[in-house]
């Protein structure tokens, strides 16, 4: 389905569900200044929907985390979930973070989400408008019109999409999609694994040293929903407001990845929002790959009552020395 067709169906359904009283609010995406800067927003009336609601290739933001707060409010809220978002939503249900009865979930198809950073990386700047024409994006800029291959503009997570399927929904727009094979998704992790320890160290130091500890990755992450994060809690003994040195840079990212291990749905939001373009998803994906390889394939958010692999075990699990015994590095 094309985005304009999906959007038309979403708008129609949102109005119907508001009108028949199934829901009293709609969470979706709101148009911005430049066609790429949409903001998640809650709409309460058909007029508000008409004025600002949008769904297109720039609606990458995962709205599932907002439902923690929204589902506590009176009435039911309609949410539109892309496949990625629905995995996150389901994981949050597993962790009892969302009141399911207060949410009406409509699964929507996703044809891949563009990342404006990738358009800029292609040397296109001064972007004032973007439209899709078949497999190309036509970008109008202050300095003339440019065009680029749609795929070139897609976010990394969409280039190796994990699934077009919605593990949870009340209804669907369009046909249900399928899981994608995982090989492409782990290729970059596998490449890093084949490097020597020195190379890996240099790679990660290079990446993590750019971290400014703005917490965007954490705060946008649908798995990071702690009432009070250990890094904000002075009583935890590890709270930090800024990384004072390279150790603290690593510490933050190791602990964050560990805390979401087995719960991360690989929605890729952490990497999308990083102002320093640190490939944070490669940390989370490493845990996913390890878990799959060591404890059997597991997908956080696939089943609502699943036990995550870190709170589970089998008697025959590999010993930690398996890490030491891996190919020489």
């Amino acid at each position, binding site marked *: 389905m094309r985005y304009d067709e999906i959007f038309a169906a979403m708008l129609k359904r949102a109005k119907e569900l508001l009108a028949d009283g199934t829901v009293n609010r709609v969470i979706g995406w709101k148009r911005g200044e430049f066609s790429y800067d949409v903001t998640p927003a809650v709409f309460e009336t058909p007029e508000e929907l008409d004025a600002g609601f949008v769904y297109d290739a720039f609606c990458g933001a995962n709205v599932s985390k907002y439902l923690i707060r929204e589902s506590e409010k009176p009435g039911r809220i309609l949410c539109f979930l892309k496949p990625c978002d629905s995995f996150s939503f389901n994981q949050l249900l597993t962790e009892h973070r969302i009141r399911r009865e207060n949410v009406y979930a409509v699964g929507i198809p996703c044809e891949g989400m563009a990342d404006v950073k990738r358009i800029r990386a292609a040397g296109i700047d001064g972007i004032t408008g973007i439209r899709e024409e078949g497999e190309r994006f036509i970008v109008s800029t202050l300095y003339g019109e440019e065009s680029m291959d749609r795929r070139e503009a897609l976010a990394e997570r969409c280039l190796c999409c994990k699934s077009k399927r919605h593990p949870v929904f009340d209804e669907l727009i369009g046909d249900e999609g399928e899981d994608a094979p995982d090989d492409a998704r782990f290729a970059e992790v596998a490449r890093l694994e084949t490097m020597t320890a020195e190379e890996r160290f240099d790679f990660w130091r290079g990446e993590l040293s750019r971290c400014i500890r703005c917490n965007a990755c954490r705060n946008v992450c649908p798995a990071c929903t702690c009432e009070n994060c250990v890094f904000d809690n002075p009583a935890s003994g590890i709270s930090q407001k800024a990384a004072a040195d390279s150790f603290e840079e690593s510490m933050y990212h190791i602990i964050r990845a560990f805390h979401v291990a087995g719960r991360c749905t690989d929605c890729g939001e952490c990497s999308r929002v990083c102002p320093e373009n640190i490939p944070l998803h490669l940390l989370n994906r490493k845990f996913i790959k390890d878990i799959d390889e060591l404890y059997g394939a597991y997908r956080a958010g696939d089943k609502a009552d699943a036990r995550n692999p870190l709170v589970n*075990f089998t008697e025959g699990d590999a010993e930690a020395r398996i890490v030491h015994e891996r190919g020489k590095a």
Partner: protein
Amino acid sequence: MQVKEATGFVPTIVAFCCNWCSYAGADLSGTNRLSYPANVKIIRVPCSCRVNPIFFLRAFQRGADGVILCGCHPGDCHYTTGNYYTRRRMTLLFSMLDYLGIERNRTRVEWVSAAEGQKFAETMRSFAEEIAALGPNRRLADLRCRKDAEEAGITDERGSGDAV
């Protein structure tokens, strides 16, 4: 007996031991006068599953060169299942440290029962030798906390504000 390299490097080693098996195993190696390096210092925890990955990082931050965790053999946990969770957590943590390019041999998990005084001493000896061979922890160190860095005048670029 401290393991020293020619350079005189004496690593700092933290050993977390569960109260029921490994701590008792350590006591037994003492009772049997089986020596192991003095730079290994033991912290008693009720169960290996009490050990948070944060404790490992904390030890490295504060100057440890190696951290080892010892617990009951799988299936023998005093709390039935604790060490099974430990095993998964530590496997994943070690794998992540390895992925970040930190020497994988700086961390270890070893199952030592209350009867294995000999094994405890041998494990500590081999671990201490391994860490001594690896040299000081640099990749996961907090320079502010390292005595040697201060003495050598090494500072991290961060904090000085001289680089961004």
